[in-house]
């Protein structure tokens, strides 16, 4: 390896260690019997894992988060796919609008949006009953997580040459809807998968919106985590277990993304069109 290669590996390795430390720390806490002040815990046990994962409150929170995230992904897909598709084959302005909208979550921090949605719902009599409803949380998640679906799918559609595919399908006699399902979607599968995974992850780990809109009544996993963290009488090990659980989940998620993504740079910087490959 060249000297540049060595220093590159060293730097990246150092960063890797920096990233790994908190995860290691959490892992240790989740399996520690007692940890009194020495560098490593006194003993190890799976007790905390068993106990926490069988606690009804925790299980309930997990289920709620999963339900929330799944619903978010479904709605995001159902809303974004037709719009983006139409943007490719009929009206390019749709795409531009969507890309601008995708920047809004950066201008509207989650907590701000959450509060705005809540006040909006509370303003009119018709929507008043939904003011603290989990469905509102879903809507909030949809509004804020869609960029993570949009970007990979947009990239996949561009790479697959959706326009050409659609014209071929149209001249073969297919309607737009059938083209979307039979031709386009199968060809952008990896993009959809990546987008779905990222959206799920964003919704699953999201705290602010759920907390602001539903207070503590709809306790998702992150809401439980923060409450448990701030609860002085609670046990730190249980908290560490769930954090570790989330890490493992996210890691599995990322491995999935890496496999489906195959090294293409995910176009996360909105507006940078890397039309040519390195």
């Amino acid at each position, binding site marked *: 390896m060249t000297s540049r290669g060595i220093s*590159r590996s060293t*730097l990246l390795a150092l*960063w890797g260690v920096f*990233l790994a*430390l*908190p995860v290691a*720390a*959490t892992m240790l*806490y989740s399996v520690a019997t007692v*940890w009194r002040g*020495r*560098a490593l815990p006194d003993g190890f046990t799976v007790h905390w894992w068993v106990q926490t994962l069988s606690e009804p409150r925790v299980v309930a929170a997990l289920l709620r988060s999963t339900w929330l995230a799944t619903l978010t992904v479904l709605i995001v897909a159902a809303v*974004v796919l*037709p*719009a983006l598709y*139409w943007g490719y084959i*009929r009206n390019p302005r*749709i795409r531009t609008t*969507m890309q601008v909208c995708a920047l809004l979550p*950066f*201008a*509207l*921090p*989650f*907590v*701000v949006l959450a*509060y*705005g*949605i809540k006040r*909006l719902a509370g303003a009119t009599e018709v929507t008043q009953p939904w003011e603290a409803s989990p469905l509102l949380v879903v809507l909030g998640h949809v*509004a804020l997580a*869609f960029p993570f679906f949009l970007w990979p799918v947009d990239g996949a559609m561009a790479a697959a040459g959706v326009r050409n595919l659609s014209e071929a399908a*149209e001249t073969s006699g297919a309607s*737009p809807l059938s083209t979307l399902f039979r031709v386009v979607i199968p060809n952008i599968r990896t993009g959809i998968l990546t987008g779905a995974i990222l959206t799920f992850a964003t919704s*699953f*780990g*999201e*705290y602010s919106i759920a907390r*602001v809109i539903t207070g503590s009544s709809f306790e998702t996993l*992150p809401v439980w*985590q*923060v409450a448990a*963290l701030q609860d002085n009488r609670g046990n*730190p090990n249980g908290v560490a277990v769930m954090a570790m659980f*989330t*890490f493992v989940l*996210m890691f599995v*998620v*990322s491995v999935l*993304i*890496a496999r489906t*993504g195959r*090294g293409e*740079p*995910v176009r*996360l*910087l909105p507006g*940078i069109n890397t039309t*040519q490959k*390195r």
Partner: protein
Amino acid sequence: MTVTTPTAPGPAVTPPAAGPPPRPGSLRTFLTQWGPAIPFLVTAGGLLVAAALWLIRTSFAGPDGGWTLQAWQDIFTQRITRDAMVRSLGLSAIVATFCLVVGSVLAYLISGLARRGRAGAQALLNVAANFGGASLAIAMVSTLGAVGFVRLLLENWFGYQLGLDLYSVWGLVVTYIYFILPLYVLLVLPAMSVLRPEWWEAVQTAGGTRWQYWRRVGLPVLFPFLLSGWVLTFAWSLGQFSVPYALLGDTTTTSLITTRLGNFLFSATGGTNRFERAAALAVLLMVISALALVAYRRIAARMLARLEGLR
């Protein structure tokens, strides 16, 4: 769904039976052009815009439903809130600058990796960037808290007392950097591929060194993208709520704009117009972030134009 070709707005080909036509041409055009995108526009676009507008209205809302600047006045006069603003801006600027300097180098290094290495790096970065706020807070407490792993390790193995307080501004800096640095790297990674290897070869054959390459070609070309990365990172840091709230809770000693907002929402601090104050803070955040966004697009746009049409 039938495929219709868009017709120009104007008199319809077959005029309706009776009465003045309510411009069927333009409505139909609109539907054919935007139809499938309407659910998206309503949920994503509409919701965001409506919420923003409502917040603006609320921040100016008076007790009797009128308009007043009271809430705005309050947030700028109350010392804790003012301190929170300064602290937030400072924190975000420090984090963004650190990311710019260190993250750009890291992104460049990663972009030079072979395909597999790059994919692996991206996977890890995706993990790090997607850490939910709550889990991250827990991890940080486990690492740098009072009985955190690193703290104990340093004490026991090296006899070194770590002075860093996780619940101070610098503790927040370290925490933010942990998950925002990967986000920055992911953001500017695609920009690295803008650098063509031929430019380095052209510099070489013209007699230039590596340093001259970076100084005259590489950095000037990259800088707009890095700067826009800075701007986005700044906005992202500013808007963080879960992480600082999970760490600091409702305490008011080390507040940020976002935790202050949380204070007004969840606890009874702030008096009678606490919701209006919360709205004012929210609008303030929105304005700063929106400005950052505009700046980001402008900066990147000019260099993008220069790169356009260069094959």
